[in-house]
């Protein structure tokens, strides 16, 4: 038996992606009223758009079976994980936060969250040299603190545990 061959794997995956988003949006907006054309309800546009997105997904999926196209790209998980982890850690620690199950993260302010972003995200590159990253992280954080906090006076917490702001 011949295994069905997909001519354009990238488009096939893209089609699935669109269908998933469309169906997800349809589910998320299921409680919203459609209204009438004369008085559009809150659900009219989201629902119609969700259907159209999913529909285009189906179309893309079908064409991908026949028309030749590019293969799927490999995902680089290392870059993805550390870059986004760095940003999430910044979000969680800049003002502190409560996590599920009673854990709390302290508010460490820009002085510590800044280097944290730089160092965690530096794991994303295989070319990282740790000495220069540490130095550079300290330098950039000091620079940002100077610009954003002191020169511009933005209310970003600097080091609540040390300076009180």
């Amino acid at each position, binding site marked *: 038996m011949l295994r069905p061959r997909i001519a354009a794997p*990238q*488009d096939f995956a*893209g089609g699935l992606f669109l269908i998933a*988003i469309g169906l997800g*949006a349809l589910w*998320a*907006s299921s409680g*919203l009223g459609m209204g*009438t*054309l*004369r*008085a*559009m*309800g*809150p*659900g009219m*546009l*989201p629902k119609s*758009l969700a259907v*159209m*997105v999913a529909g*285009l*997904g189906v179309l*893309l999926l079908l064409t991908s079976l026949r028309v030749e196209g*590019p293969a*799927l790209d490999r*995902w*680089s998980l290392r*870059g*993805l994980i550390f*870059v*986004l982890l*760095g*940003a*999430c850690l*910044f*979000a*969680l620690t*800049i003002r502190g936060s409560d996590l599920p199950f009673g854990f709390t993260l302290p508010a460490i302010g820009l002085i510590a*969250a*800044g280097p944290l*972003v*730089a160092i965690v*995200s*530096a794991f*994303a*590159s295989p*070319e990282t*040299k740790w000495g*220069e*990253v540490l130095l*550079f992280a300290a330098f*950039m954080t000091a620079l*940002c603190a100077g*610009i*954003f906090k002191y020169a*511009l006076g*933005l*209310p*970003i917490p600097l080091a609540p545990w040390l300076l009180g702001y």
Partner: protein
Amino acid sequence: MDLFSNLALGFGVALSLKNLALCFTGCFIGTLIGVLPGVGPIATIAMLLPITFGIDPVGALIMLAGIYYGAQYGGSTTAILVNIPGEATSVVTTLDGHQMAKQGRAGVALGISAIGSFIAGSVATVLIAALGAPLTRMALLFGPAEYFSLMVMGLCFAVVLARGSILKAIAMILLGLLFSTIGTDLETGQERMTFGFAPLSDGLDFAVLAMGIFGFAEVIKNLENPETRDVVRQKVGRLLPNLAEMKQSAMPIVRGTFLGSALGILPGNGAVLGPFASYTLEKKLAKDSSRFGRGAIEGVAGPESANNAGAQTSFIPLLTLGIPPNAVMALMVGAMTIHGVIPGPQVMTKNPQLFWGMIASMWIGNLMLLIINLPLIGLWVKLLKVPYRLMFPAILLFCCIGIYSINNSPVDVAMTAFFGLFGYALIKFGFEPAPLLLGYVLGRLLEEKMRQALIISRGSFMTFVERPISAGLLVVAVIVLVVALLPSIQKKRDVVFTE
């Protein structure tokens, strides 16, 4: 002469010491960030938005406009020196600009690019000033139906101007529109698709979406490829072109300026097409077209002028109709709203100081780019030699601080990370994200105008085709889409974008 008295008013505002300083600072830091490889104007503006919060509206917008031009010029610098285009519009510059740099003529390439941009910027400034008043008057004739059709037309243009498959571009537009419905419905007050998550009830912040897709996702994508940046080792050389080079570039600059200005006015990000069109035109007109791709100065002068002219005339739809034609202008809307200015036809009448001051500052900004960048090229070359492994943690740090500062909200940073993941998935599935942003930008206004139009017409869709202006706009939209779908044009379109 209304035009001149208006411009005089504008220059009076823009030439105040404080506004000059803001314009200068904006141009300088805009270039500084824009030079970083992989950081285009959208990410630059989103990152730097918070620094304008403490300034009065006129000053803030002057500074933001300065940041925008700076980022554009920084992108060209990177394109010429390192062969990395910061954004779609400077792709063309890499073709001949980088070749010139390899021949030791980087200075001349940067010089002619600055001079061309300045000339283009000056023409575009006058054009905006001249078209501002009549277009504003026209905008007052627009009802909800016309606005709706105009936006539909803009979105159709965006589909045609996107690279790659038309089907995928349409999907991106619809996805953008879909995202714009997240949050509280303005008409009924009902929460839509927020999953009970409180930070979503105001809708997605545009800066969050843009920064996730154009900041984080870009960084992750760049990390995939091992560093192959070859900053030109040759001498930068003299900056000012000699007489023969000026002569060669004069007509390309003029043609580029007009092409770019005309395309920039189109709603739906026509500005991206300017450099491509100009390059193709110059290549066609050249006596010896084989020089192109090997360091032809016309191939830098024309597209760079078109680029800058388009960047500037794309302010026209925003300032006169209140419709942002691209993602950068959408960030401008965000900035204006924060300062309590609602973009649209009423800005010019209610807030002439702001309107004309901003227009005058555009010209001053272009002059400043010329003045600050020519002596600073050495600095940019040094900055470009910093390896990406050090640059990307710094870019991420800037992004985090920038996003946090817009609303003082840590949740925004986490959501940006989420959209980084989303943007990366889009790249991997071969979708171009620019139309998504445009769809998002126009979504709310589109829904509002559609509702209003349908209320007035008592639920009849015929209103969009019965009103002459609206029907005309829709006809243009349909023609554009049909033409783009014709097989022969589609082939040509591929050629234009792959060249």
